């Protein structure tokens, strides 16, 4: 079985360190689809994502199963500050990465970096290109990370809790941006989060992870309204409800 | 009512010992040091000869079955002298380390916890001391106070606490950023109580590791001062004076100055490894 461009097939994935941490996980991502992975800490969701990217931490390895990715894969992370060199201006960093992917002169890379900044909706790109990571806000840094990921012109974007550390308004903006990029570029998304509400708002299908296993998979509406597994039910119930916000009266 | 999912620990000391034995540095260091300490303590029993007995006819003899380390220019058995000198030097090093250890701990804790003006004043005092090369200070004090053991005790009591105080202060400051320190004071405990009962146990592992280095440095200082004639005075045997007296023979009768030097190195390596090992076990590095 081959995956199309933008598709991902994970079969029987096992990840081990001193003990087995992920016990045979199956995932299928269709081109252009957004699949959400939901689970608590220690469920193996982040490890699975890193295994797809080939970025498992030292001491851990894939001990079984296969990962087949159609096309280029890029990834964004939870804490952008630790993924950006504090001593390099973000524009320079992005320029270097563009050159590493596509060659060309420094000037063309710089132009490409500016384009990417516009793509990720960073305001005043010329000024921000010259900033250092610590001079940017959390939301801006996450957009920079997104720009870096897009520099590779990926077909699949892996997201490891990218909005967990962000304020709720900033989170909403970043999620909207991801949805927009997905629509515009036809990106497939694999989005990991502990927050079911975030995953449900962005993704078409959801996989629930628990203790290194994929416990339930299905379309978002099914998982939220008709969970079949007890654990899934518990996760859905644990989402604290908010009353509906009344519309602002229009004058 | 939920059950506690933690595993009940076997006695903490047993767990600590198991972890300790897994550190090669700690095991090697402890072994070397235990050996040197045992030999020093048992000097009267273990040394084959009296360290002072001269035998001018049998002087400058190479190592042999009857004299494992050979004899020096006055015919004294070097092995016995090395053993007895070790007894002196180790004793002084350990005793002289006690006061700077306590001072460094107290100053570091108070400075780190208080912050503000107290920290600033102590910082300037430390800066003043640090401006001088360390050995210059030690030698100056020994010169002023008088040579021998007392000079060394006083010199280190006055000056030896500086480096450990700085490390303890840094560690204390880091700990104070953690919530439980504020919680202790916020719960109504007094400042001295927070420092003594809550901070001290967390800082002690670091302090003990620093103590190993302190003892090592004092031992080297004792040997150096002895070499310069400013330390332990004859007839008390001391590795430093042995090296100094024997240096003329370095090319011809190498065993006279070298073997005391080897003893210094072994003790030093033992202390250093033990310090590293403890730091590993307590996860300080």
């Amino acid at each position, binding site marked *: 079985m081959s995956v199309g461009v933008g598709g991902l097939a994970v079969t029987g994935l096992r990840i081990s360190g001193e003990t087995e941490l992920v016990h045979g996980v199956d995932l299928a991502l269709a081109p252009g689809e957004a699949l959400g992975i939901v689970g608590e800490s220690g469920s193996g969701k982040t490890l699975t994502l890193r295994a797809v990217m080939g970025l498992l931490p030292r001491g851990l390895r894939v001990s079984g199963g296969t990962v087949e990715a159609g096309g280029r894969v890029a990834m964004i992370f939870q804490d952008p500050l630790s993924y950006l060199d504090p001593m390099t201006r973000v524009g320079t960093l992005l320029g270097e990465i563009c050159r590493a992917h596509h060659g060309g002169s420094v000037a063309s890379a710089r132009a490409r970096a500016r384009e990417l900044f516009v793509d990720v909706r960073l305001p005043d790109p010329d000024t921000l290109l010259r900033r250092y990571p610590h001079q940017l806000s959390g939301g801006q840094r996450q957009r920079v990370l997104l720009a870096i990921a897009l520099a590779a012109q990926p077909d699949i974007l892996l997201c490891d809790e990218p909005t967990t550390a962000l304020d709720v308004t900033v989170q909403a903006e970043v999620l909207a941006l991801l949805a927009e990029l997905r629509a515009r570029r036809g990106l497939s998304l694999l989005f990991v989060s502990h927050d079911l509400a975030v995953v449900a708002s962005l993704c078409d299908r959801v996989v629930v992870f628990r203790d290194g296993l994929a416990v339930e998979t299905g379309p978002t509406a099914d998982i939220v309204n008709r969970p079949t597994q007890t654990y899934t039910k518990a996760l859905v119930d644990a989402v604290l409800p908010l009353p509906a916000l009344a519309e602002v009266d229009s004058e | 009512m939920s059950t506690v999912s933690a595993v*009940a620990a076997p006695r903490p000391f047993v767990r600590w010992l198991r972890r300790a034995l897994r550190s090669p540095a700690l095991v090697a260091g402890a072994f070397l040091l235990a050996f040197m300490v045992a030999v020093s303590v048992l000097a009267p029993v273990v040394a084959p000869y009296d360290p002072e007995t001269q035998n001018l006819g049998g002087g400058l003899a190479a190592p042999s079955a009857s004299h494992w380390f050979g004899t020096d220019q006055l015919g004294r058995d070097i092995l016995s002298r090395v053993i007895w000198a070790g007894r002196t030097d180790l004793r002084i090093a350990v005793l002289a380390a006690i006061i700077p250890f306590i001072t460094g701990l107290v100053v570091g804790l108070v400075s780190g916890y208080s912050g503000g003006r107290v920290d600033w004043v102590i910082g300037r005092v430390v800066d003043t001391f640090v401006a001088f090369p360390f050995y210059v200070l030690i030698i100056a004090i020994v010169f002023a106070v008088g040579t021998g053991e007392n000079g060394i005790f006083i010199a280190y009591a006055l000056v030896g606490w500086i480096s450990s105080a700085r490390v303890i202060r840094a560690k204390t400051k880091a700990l104070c950023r953690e919530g439980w320190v504020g919680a202790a004071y916020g719960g109504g405990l007094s400042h001295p109580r927070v420092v003594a009962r809550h901070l001290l146990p967390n800082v002690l592992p670091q302090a003990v590791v620093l103590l190993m280095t302190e003892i090592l440095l004092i031992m080297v200082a004792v040997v150096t001062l002895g070499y310069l004639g400013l330390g332990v005075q004859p007839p008390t045997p001391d590795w430093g004076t042995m090296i100094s007296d024997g240096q003329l023979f370095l090319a011809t009768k190498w065993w006279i100055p070298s073997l005391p030097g080897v003893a210094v190195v072994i003790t030093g390596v033992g202390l250093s490894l033990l310090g590293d090992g403890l730091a590993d076990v307590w996860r300080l590095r």
Partner: protein
Amino acid sequence: MSSGLELVGVGVAYGSTRVIDEVALQVAPGRIVGLVGESGSGKTTLARAIVGSVPLASGSIRLDGVELRSGHRSREERRAIQLVQQDPFASLNPALTIGSVLDELLRVHGLCGDRAGRRTRSAELLGLVGLEAEVLDRYPRQFSGGQRQRIAIARALAVEPAVLVADEPTSSLDTSVQKTVLELLSELAAQMNLATLFISHDLSVIHAVCDHVAVLQGGRLVEVAPSGRFFTHPEDPYSRALLEAVPRIVKEPR
């Protein structure tokens, strides 16, 4: 009978910058007031000012009508306001057993008589937060984040405070554990007549436990309202923006 916590015109400055400005708030005994703010809003600074670790530049903080000064609070004043912090992994002294920490607090405040009495009371406190007596002889490293947070709550309750300030107490916890801790805080506020200030950036959590909501933006309160009204009819545009930004699960009507 405590009249609760009262903040009037409270301001905090770091150097020349006003981090908190003109904050007026009241927390009555037995009630839970939620303080919502995004990063940089000053909510943690306000928590620290209430607890006394940060000096006020203006205004006053009163407990039961008596003004509390920062930095030089008496033992009784410190005891009256307790803080539960966000990071459960830094909130307990790693070198001490849970039991020794609780015992010391009880002893220093002269509660519960002798050692046996204190031990019984410590076990009771743990029971209040759903933990067993065996916990007393263990070290913090043997517990999960959720358990540590419950231990931190038990520690706060040990000195019998009038006010509890909970600064993002469930932010570092898994959602399943979060529910337990929130229910616990609700129960305790009612049972022990605690005036509770619940600080969070998470509006769904605030909705779950709080009677009143105060919104902090850039160091100023932009809205204070009862929970019922706030979540459906927020008055301030910033409050509305926050509520609109919360991702919600849309369930199909049954």
